[in-house]
């Protein structure tokens, strides 16, 4: 039985954060800096997970979990790999137009699974690169090279191309069939994507692109809370892992007299209310046991102990209030809401870990658990770990503890320019605002 829930907040968070970070050292290929999507056997690389790794190394250096030289070495290995990678857009290349295929081979770094050239996953990779570039500022040959690589990779991305002449950025492209024929609709994790795409000095998207995206937003009053609707929790977290969205507002949020950070806090309250109402009567749900997000989940093959009308969704973007919901909750998704609602998140984490300790091994959280799907009389637990979960946990705990990642990205002129281009104003983005002001 874990003792973690009995520790102080700070001690508990420290252990959770360090254990999460361990994922990257265990799954990185030191030769090319690429990191596995999951800890499962034969997992390919997820380019987004590489972005999280690049963002987490500075945290590990600051916390003394990793030597600076090792962090630089792994970061440079990854950045060099991407610089030198096949950008022909061929079906077995690594990327095209500065974007990269979603999943790559761990050794060769070439496309696997016929995956798409992914705009959002490339954005998360590049956000990680920018984070590294902002942190490793020493005047050494290694760190100078690192910064040059970051700048090269960022400037190479042809964001304008990803619009495909349309109003908003496309979600993906395949060499076999061209652009996936759907774009972004509704609020999503894409603010960081748009900020980088607008801040680009080389290939910026069109000025009205961000407005075209926010025109698909839905401002709703749900369970007594006004908020910008998005079902899964991760949508309310991913851009926030890099961008400090406290107190800065785009035209949409100015009109609604809110900001994205407050909105993510509202999302926590809505998750709590949903699990309290528990419309499908799943086991374990209550106001301190929540976390519907994109995560792994059980499938029909894994359990025959559920009733025939209980549908299982496997890996899916679970959300509230419309689902999909099969009784699967993600503890990493709860923990990643820490900066928005620390007291509620800590209460939920302690409660969930006390009741379902099986979801954590050596202080590291599995992607998800489902007490409504028993396996040998125990709750179903996702096997192994997912890099996205571990990355966002490390970053959000750090933002809560020290604000390190936010500070680094606040000093990125690309990000600041992009946010201003998108119409963000106020708070720390004001040129005259003193350091650290909201």
């Amino acid at each position, binding site marked *: 039985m874990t003792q973690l829930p009995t520790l102080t907040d700070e001690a508990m968070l420290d252990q959770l954060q360090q254990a999460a970070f361990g994922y990257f050292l265990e799954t990185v290929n030191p030769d090319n800096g690429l990191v596995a999507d999951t800890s499962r056997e034969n997992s390919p690389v997820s380019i987004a997970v590489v972005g999280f790794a690049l963002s987490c190394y500075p945290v590990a250096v600051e916390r003394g979990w990793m030597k600076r030289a090792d962090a630089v070495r792994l970061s440079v290995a990854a950045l060099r790999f991407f610089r030198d990678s096949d950008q022909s857009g061929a079906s077995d290349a690594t990327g095209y137009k500065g974007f990269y295929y979603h999943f790559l081979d761990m050794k060769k770094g070439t496309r696997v699974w016929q995956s798409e050239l992914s705009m959002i996953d490339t954005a998360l990779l590049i956000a990680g690169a920018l984070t590294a570039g902002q942190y490793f500022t020493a005047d050494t040959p290694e760190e100078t090279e690192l910064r040059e690589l970051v700048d090269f990779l960022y400037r190479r991305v042809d964001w304008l191309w990803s619009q495909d002449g349309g109003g908003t950025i496309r979600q993906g492209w*395949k060499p*076999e069939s061209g652009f996936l024929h759907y774009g972004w*609709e509704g609020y999503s994790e894409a603010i960081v994507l748009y900020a980088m795409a607008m801040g680009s000095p080389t290939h910026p998207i069109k000025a009205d692109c961000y407005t075209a995206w926010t*025109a698909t937003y839905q401002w*709703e*009053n749900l369970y007594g809370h006004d908020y910008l609707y998005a079902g899964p929790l991760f949508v309310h977290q991913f851009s926030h892992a890099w961008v400090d969205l406290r107190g800065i507002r785009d035209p949409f949020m100015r009109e*609604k007299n809110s900001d994205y950070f407050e909105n993510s806090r509202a999302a926590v309250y809505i998750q709590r209310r949903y699990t309290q109402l528990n419309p499908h009567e799943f086991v374990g749900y209550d106001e301190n046991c929540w976390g519907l997000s994109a995560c792994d989940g059980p499938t029909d093959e894994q359990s025959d102990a559920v009733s025939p009308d209980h549908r299982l969704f496997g890996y899916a973007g679970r959300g509230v*209030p419309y689902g999909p919901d099969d009784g699967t909750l993600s503890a990493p998704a709860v923990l990643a809401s820490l900066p928005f609602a620390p007291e509620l998140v800590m209460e939920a984490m302690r409660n969930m870990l006390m009741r379902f300790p099986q979801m954590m091994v050596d202080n590291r959280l599995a992607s998800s658990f489902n007490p409504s799907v028993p396996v040998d009389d125990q709750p179903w637990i996702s096997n192994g770990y997912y890099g996205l979960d571990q990355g966002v946990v490390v970053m959000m705990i750090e933002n809560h503890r020290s604000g390190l990642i936010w500070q680094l990205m606040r000093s990125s002129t690309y990000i600041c320019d992009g946010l201003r281009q998108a119409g963000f104003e106020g708070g720390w983005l004001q040129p005259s605002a003193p350091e650290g002001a909201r």
Partner: protein
Amino acid sequence: MSPPFDATITAPQDAWEDKRVADLHPAAWANPKPADRYQLVIIGAGSAGVAAAELAIAMGLKVALIERHFIGGTCLNTGCVPSKALIRTARLYADMRNAARYGAKADNIEVDFTAVMDRVRRIRSHLSGGSSVRRMAKLGVDMFFGNVRFAGDDTLMVNELTLRFGKALIATGTRPHIPDVPGLREAGFLTNATVFNLTELPKRLLVIGGGPVGCELAQAFRQLGSKVTIVQDKPLFLEREERDAAQILSDAFGRDGIEVRLNTTATAVRAENGAKQVDLLSADYKSTIEVDAILTGVGRVPNVQGLDLEKAGIKYDAKKGIAVDDFLLTSNPRVYAAGDVCLEDQYTDTAAASARIVVNNAFMRGRMRLSELVIPWCTYTDPEIAHVGLYVREANLKGIPIKTFTVPMHQIDRAVTDSEEGGFVKIHVREGTDTILGATIVARHAGEMINEITLAMVAKIGLRTLARVIHAYPTQAEAIREAAKAYSRTRITTRLRARLQKWLARTTE
């Protein structure tokens, strides 16, 4: 031997069909001798044409009504009426299979498809009396059957007969749009025009197209026991609807065991060994499925061909239909259009309402505008998806600040007691006011519930008033009041806070 499941399928010649034909297009009908001049000639006796004829006769006008096929149009013969009759039985079977959820038992459920379709045709035949030729003639309408061609600004031909008119109304409706898939025509397919003639259930059915009709029929046939695959070339069904509504429908299809293929197109069809092989393409993924029947033509194209519209100077587009202004006048000042042939919103009641606008504008010097109609609609899947007024994205594009009050059905007692908690009520208001701009309802009986919102919009009743309307408890429509109460709570908070601040400011002075 299975039936061919193609366009050659005709309605069984039973007593129901005999009555329907006698009501709607009797074989022995002889067209009357035309009057010298009609004040109103109506082309097409569907929902719009019949509504216009009834109003015009009530106003004392001399009216001719011309129909090529059956009175009652798509709605009565091949649309709303038969499909809703079919859906009712399909839902019953779905409920029977779902009996355990209600603590009930229903074993050995066996679908008698012949009986299902017999009921559909009986009900269609029963309702055809309301639009019968005899009734029209009795009202005083000169009823003609035949093909229409315009011969000039104020003249048209019905077969060989010449009709002169003061005003004319084109209400010819639409027909199924057949997608251009190689081999489809040769292999044979069903459309809404033929599907209700079936007497045998296709074991495996492919539905091409995820609009309202495709979704309704896909689910109904699945619930009746077909193995159904639905192919839609978009990322979601019901392209026009809100994302959440379409997503809930996708989930419901998964629940029902429908094989959903989104972002997928049918690229070729081959008939082999009595079955149909259909090639599908999704991005770069190719596959082939084998089915017994293909239902398509669920998109619609306007009936504008063969009318010689050019001779009357009437502008039209082969895809968009007859061009009309907001008063429903065409480019010929004597000729109006109404219903599906000219409208984007293709619903029975909208067709009838637009026809009444035409009669008003043509003869009462009316200046009624199409754009002033508040038009609700509903897709009768389970759950139903109903909408009225603006969508959020429309408001955003028009720069109208919009806020949505959302109530998931799982918050409503009656939905929970009925185990029908999937869905929601979303009411959109102009931000900072209680003025309703639109609403979407997803619920088992959303079509019934949307009417309250439509009433409120037409009568200009805001959420503040709706919050005061006590709804019978427990009913699912209470979700509407809950949304209104959520609005009221936001107002109370703001007001109380303002008062408190004033009071505090005074006491600390």
